[in-house]
């Protein structure tokens, strides 16, 4: 299975270099980065939605679901960072600036901030059950701004007029068939690799959880060592008689 995946990824990468240059861009040869930029954005969205669904499950009192939700959101964050990095490279080459305050670029940065706050919120809560519930609620709620920023805001007519982003190139069918087939192949390979990494992260998280439970059971649910209390009798004036 791994060999097939490696071969498929290699074939998709070679295909991205063999595809004809996209003539509508100012630097057609260097526009090939979209073969990796677009799949990263698609996969990040898939994992963000997965994180929200698992967050709702964690709300019903499941530490296992919380472990899965964290792994999904971590995966989504990595993919979103890759999307930002590849997007900035594209911006530097095509628009001559690393950051152009393009509405779509900025809205994706906001998505990153939303999920950055998710990890900050988790870090502030020490109790495992409470952290699972609070993080699950936040994750479920954050799907509202995430969907708005990814799917609604960039498609508003006023925003599309001002945006430098090649949205019409993609949605208007200006992409040739070979381009779409390479993008979808890279997306499929990336998704399989990310799901494999996600499963590894979940297994590590569940092991950690099981170890913590066993440790607590060994200590009868008490993680602090027992303390000795010595009786001390006091005189009427409050002075110690038997120190």
């Amino acid at each position, binding site marked *: 299975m791994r060999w097939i995946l490696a071969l498929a990824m290699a074939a998709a990468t070679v295909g991205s270099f063999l595809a004809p240059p996209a003539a509508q861009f100012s630097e057609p040869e260097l526009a090939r980065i979209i073969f990796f930029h677009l799949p990263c954005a698609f996969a990040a969205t898939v994992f963000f939605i997965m994180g929200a669904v698992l967050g709702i499950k964690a*709300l019903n009192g499941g530490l296992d679901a919380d472990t899965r939700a964290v792994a999904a959101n971590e995966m989504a964050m990595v993919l979103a960072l890759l999307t930002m990095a590849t997007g900035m490279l594209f911006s530097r080459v095509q628009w001559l600036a690393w950051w152009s305050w393009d509405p779509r670029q900025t809205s994706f940065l906001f998505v990153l*901030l939303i999920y950055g706050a998710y990890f900050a*919120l988790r870090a*502030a809560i020490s109790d495992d059950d409470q952290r699972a*519930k609070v993080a699950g609620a936040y994750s479920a*709620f*954050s799907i509202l701004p995430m969907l*708005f920023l990814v799917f609604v*805001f960039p498609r508003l007519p006023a925003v599309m007029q001002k945006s430098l982003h090649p949205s019409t190139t993609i949605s208007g069918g200006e992409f040739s068939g070979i381009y779409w087939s390479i993008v979808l192949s890279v997306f499929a390979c990336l998704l399989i690799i990310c799901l494999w990494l996600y499963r590894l992260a979940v297994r590590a998280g569940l092991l950690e959880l099981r170890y913590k439970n066993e440790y607590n059971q060994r200590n009868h649910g008490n993680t602090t060592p027992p303390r000795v209390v010595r009786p001390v009798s006091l005189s009427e004036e409050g002075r110690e008689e038997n120190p």
Partner: protein
Amino acid sequence: MIRSKKDGGHMKSAWATEISAVFEKEIKTEQRSRAGFLTSLLSSVLIVISLAYGAFGSTLDGTLAAGLFWVALIFAAVAALPRTFLAEEEAGTADLLRLAARPHAIFWGKALFNCLQILITAVILVLLFSVMMGLTIKMPFLLIVSLVGGALGLAGTVTFGAALVAQGSNRTMLVGVVCLPLMIPLIMMGISSFRVALGVGEALGGWTSALGVWFYAFLVFSLAPNLFAMVWQGKRS
């Protein structure tokens, strides 16, 4: 639980009684300390004075003024509104509140109080912007519609964010980090409708954005009370 009671010959529903009890409790707490109102009032005045001073007397463009207005409103909201939940945890009264009312009623009572507070702040901010920065409002009805919708959305989001943050440590620092990103769609649509109310852009675009603000507020109030109930019921301190 707070029981329903006969009020003027009509049986008031248990929900309305609980929500109004939480709302009245917040009003009385505010009357005693005046901390929330004073915080939002002072932060609004300080922000507008700083902006007016920084602008060196020049009249601001409508788009820039709309952006600055919403930034001032958001900071006033984040400074004052989370108190409703943070104060409960600090004073140790959260468990008593759990016994007194159902989670949905607590959320609605606190969110309505926060909405009232942010509306008062918004009115003060509009007056300050008009007097100190010389703004003229071309479409007052659009301004009112978008502000009321915005206040509802802000109140719902900050109430929800504050309820989550109240369960953790480092609350005052964290509340802004958690609430601000969740309000971004509201800020974007609010600015868009506000600038039209100030005379920049087409009326249709302004009304569409105002509708978007109301729709987002509706979504917030559909989702947040249910999520809050699940978190609030699970907490046993």
